[in-house]
């Protein structure tokens, strides 16, 4: 048993728009020290902090764009997102739901506010993560895992003080619903005020959390407010959090993928040559076709 200490508490950067539907703070890779290499296998995190979108007849979102070489994981906290892809897939991610899309060898997709949500408007809050794939799986077949909140197994904290929803990995024997290519843990901790939860991950796993709602005390010492990100040192295994008000916290911990990263726009490969190939394949229609 050894404590994992905080390396950095990162406030949200000024937001920018992705398309016209996602107003995001980027944490990984553009915040200080949160590089793809340091955070691997989590190579991008865009956080749409709670933001009110007024009613719109035309759903806002991001038009057709490709991905290759990694997975996108979209976690919906408020609002709903509809998505479609060039392999004929599509669906709606509702509140508490997760869409785990393995882009791998390549898909075209588009993401919009779901039609009804768009018409009524409302608070919108999402996280999108990019999870890297090891070289051997980068060109595997694309696939989807759509998880509604009901599909996600959760661990009940003592005295009904909260739940740990296990999206991926394992928490005290509760298995995550999503399958992953490399070892990792991804949880939503939903805590009532004063609830405590402890976590233990191998020391080598890159580990972080994001406070989605409320505020927490980490390792009984550091108060972390809403929308702040915590990067942990790789100096121990265990840390604890305590909700200082009702809180929702996204917890991430994964084994780093120790391979070179070559990234450009929506492609994350291992070499420059593979990036050039990805761009050529996209231009030549090898990702399929999707109407804008």
């Amino acid at each position, binding site marked *: 048993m050894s404590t994992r200490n905080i390396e950095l508490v990162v406030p949200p950067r000024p937001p920018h728009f992705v398309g016209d539907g996602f107003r995001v703070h980027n944490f990984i890779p553009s915040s200080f020290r949160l590089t793809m290499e340091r955070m691997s296998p989590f190579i991008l995190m865009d956080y749409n902090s709670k933001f009110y979108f007024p009613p719109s007849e035309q759903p806002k979102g991001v038009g057709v764009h490709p991905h290759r070489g990694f997975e996108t994981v979209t976690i919906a906290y408020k609002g709903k997102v509809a998505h479609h892809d*060039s392999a004929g897939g599509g669906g709606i991610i509702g509140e508490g739901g997760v869409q785990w899309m393995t882009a791998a060898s390549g898909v075209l997709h588009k993401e919009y506010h779901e039609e009804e949500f768009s018409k009524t408007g409302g608070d919108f809050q999402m996280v999108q993560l990019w999870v890297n794939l090891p070289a051997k799986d980068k060109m595997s*077949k694309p696939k989807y895992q759509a998880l509604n909140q009901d599909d996600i197994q959760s661990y009940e904290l003592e005295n009904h003080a909260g739940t740990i929803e296990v999206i991926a990995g394992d928490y005290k024997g509760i298995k995550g619903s999503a399958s992953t290519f490399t070892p990792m843990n991804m949880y939503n901790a939903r805590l009532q005020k004063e609830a405590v939860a402890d976590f233990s991950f191998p020391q080598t796993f890159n580990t972080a959390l994001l406070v989605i709602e409320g505020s927490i005390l980490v390792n009984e010492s550091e108060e972390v407010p809403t929308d702040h990100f915590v990067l942990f040192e790789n100096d121990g295994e265990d840390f604890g959090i305590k909700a200082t008000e009702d809180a929702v916290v996204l917890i991430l911990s994964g084994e780093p993928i120790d391979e070179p990263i070559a990234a450009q*726009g929506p492609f994350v490969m291992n070499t420059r040559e593979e990036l050039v190939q990805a761009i*050529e394949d996209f*231009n030549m*229609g090898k990702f*399929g*076709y999707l109407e804008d």
Partner: protein
Amino acid sequence: MELLNFKKYLNQQWGLPKDAIDQLCDGIRTKKVKKEELLLQAGEICKLTFFVEKGLLRMYALNEKGKEDILQFAPENWLVSDRGSIYFNEPSDYYIDAIEETEVVLLDTEFVDKISALGPSFRKLNDRLLHNHIRHLNKRVKLLLGASAKTRYLNFIKLHPDVLLRVPQWMVASYLGIAPESLSRVRRDLAKENFKQG
């Protein structure tokens, strides 16, 4: 601004050694351009050539219907300017603006004087650049006059492999002189030929 690309360009295109490059870059003007910010407007006399250190510019004209016709994209390491307006000191017909947040090096007559003073090879190299520009323009006119949408598209992705990823499709269609629907059709047909599921 670090000017890594610009320095590399001066070394590779102009064959300049490090001390000459440092001398040229000393006090050189640069600018951070916001998305959609204009660097040149029709009616103005163009005084500057823009070297794109990072980002993406475009040059366009407004046609009779008030629609934008894109003449050129200028991603990293490209130069863009209205050479005619500079040389003949006459009002430009064109606009230059940024599609992304862009860092540019501003090349003015003072810079041209400075680089000319470095040796006689400047004139030769400038001639070469000018003729390369003419060759490129002629090819573009030829494609616009007689090539199918598919041929235009295939030439475009060879010249600018990553621009389609960085700009809305209608801009690429405008550059190619085709309707956005025609570009969609070309891309759909290519996908039919090349997309193998699984």
